[in-house]
């Protein structure tokens, strides 16, 4: 079953990628041809920015949620992790409601600054959407890592006179590094391959999954679409292999 419906098709995909007019060079074209390269760079920059932002905000929240017990804490955790299984298309639509023409941000900024901010269909909108689905994935992994931190190390640093900032920089953040690598790689892979969110929002922005889609459907350039998706698959696979070697287990669905 798995062989017939997964392995064989994947092999076929790899072969097709090299079967176009330019043959195996189609794979090189991803890096050489300006249009493909620009899209690739765009996508990598966007995914990197998403990953960095998700790591920062999620770590602040995760540290806070694991160190304090207060009423409503578990509800807050539930709210922060609920988008984990939301499809990308829906997330795209939520960003439209937030930053589109009739969006909340537009209304608020129109009221506050007299100027309506509408950016759902731009790189910023895409970034916001990617951030939306990255936060739950990162928060779960980082929270689990914070829970396993040895409080004795932190206390030792404190009793030795380290300032809170120094404790964070020299003790806590290094100890969380494996979790950062694991969840960061997962967030990066998910952002690279995100199709649903891009499909709703990326009308003016070029990202790799959209390029594959348009090559396949509009230009009927099947060989190039196959080569591009093999390239994309390799990138996400490598990122997730990195995540796994750092102990991450949250899968990159969506």
């Amino acid at each position, binding site marked *: 079953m798995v062989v017939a419906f997964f392995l064989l098709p994947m092999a076929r995909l790899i072969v097709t990628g090299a079967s176009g007019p330019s043959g195996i060079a189609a794979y090189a074209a991803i890096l050489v041809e300006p249009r493909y390269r620009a899209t690739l760079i765009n996508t990598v920059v966007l995914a990197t920015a998403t990953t960095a932002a998700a790591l920062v905000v999620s770590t602040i929240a995760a540290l806070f949620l694991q160190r304090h017990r207060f009423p409503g804490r578990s509800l807050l955790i539930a709210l922060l992790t609920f988008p984990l299984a939301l499809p990308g298309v829906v997330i795209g639509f939520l960003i439209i409601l937030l930053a589109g023409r009739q969006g909340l941000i537009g209304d608020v900024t129109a009221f506050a600054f007299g100027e309506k901010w509408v950016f759902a269909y731009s790189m910023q909108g895409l970034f916001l959407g990617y951030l939306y689905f990255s936060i739950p994935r990162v928060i779960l992994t980082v929270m689990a890592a914070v829970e396993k931190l040895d409080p004795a190390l932190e206390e030792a640093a*404190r009793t030795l006179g380290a300032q809170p900032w120094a404790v964070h920089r020299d003790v806590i953040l290094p100890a969380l590094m494996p979790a950062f690598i694991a969840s960061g790689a997962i967030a990066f892979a998910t952002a690279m391959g995100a199709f649903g969110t891009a499909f709703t929002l990326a009308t003016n922005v070029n990202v790799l999954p959209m390029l594959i889609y348009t090559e396949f459907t509009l230009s009927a350039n099947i060989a190039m679409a196959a080569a591009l998706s093999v390239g994309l698959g390799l990138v996400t696979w490598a990122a997730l292999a990195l995540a796994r070697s750092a102990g991450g287990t949250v899968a990159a669905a969506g």
Partner: protein
Amino acid sequence: MTEMRRPLGPIIRRPHVLRARLLFAAQLVFTLLLAAFLIVPAGLSMLAGVTENYFIGVRSGLTLRWLAQVWELYADTILRSFVIAIATLVVTIVIGLPAAYALHRRGDRVARLVEEIITLPLAIPGLAIALALLLSYGNFSDFRRSWLFILVGHVIFTLPFMVRSIMAVLAAVNINLLDEGAASLGASPWQRFRDVIVPNVKPGLLAGSLMVVTLSLGEFNLTWMLHTPLTKTLPVGLADSYASMRLEVASAYTLVFFIMIIPLLVAMQFMAGRGGLTGGRR
């Protein structure tokens, strides 16, 4: 609050307490804002789905009109999504349960390789898997046109979650010992499977099932490539409505999706809270 445990005198403790409180408040506000970023748009979309005219706002009145219109336009996609999700669940259990058991029993290098292959679709974007399926089976036109084509995609995408979820439980309960105990008491393989294995893997099976149904109901990346005009699923219809319908209809449609998916998400959270036996912390 390690602050409280500091073995320091009361003289220098007071400013620390104040600072700790301020820090607590700042972090709480930050975390609440983050949660708001995730929840507010979802709330907005639900509200917009029952608002007469979203441009004017809630004061234009609430209505179920848009929901009725969604049902009229998209009922078939909603039903089809349910059918595909249930079929995906059945197939993933039928394949996944024996596969997980066999992989766990063997536990050697071959088993690990097979496990790698089964979980590989997690690491590859749905778009690439869909293209691969289209290139390989797109010419079998009857198959291509039926919803079974989508089912195949969904099974490939969700099977890893089922297998992992069951394997996590198998590893936790030391199933080999129980199994051997039953075998030494004379139980046949089928009896052991039915009376020892299945009851013991139930939590994993349940967690995996919730995940599979949730993912199948919301799957878009593969389905968008695999669908035909006659085999649209709910997320495909959603994408359609986002592109071509007025905001209220798109929101009402999204509301229907939320109504379907939220009980599943809550059940998953509940299961995770009771011991987290989901396939590797999802």
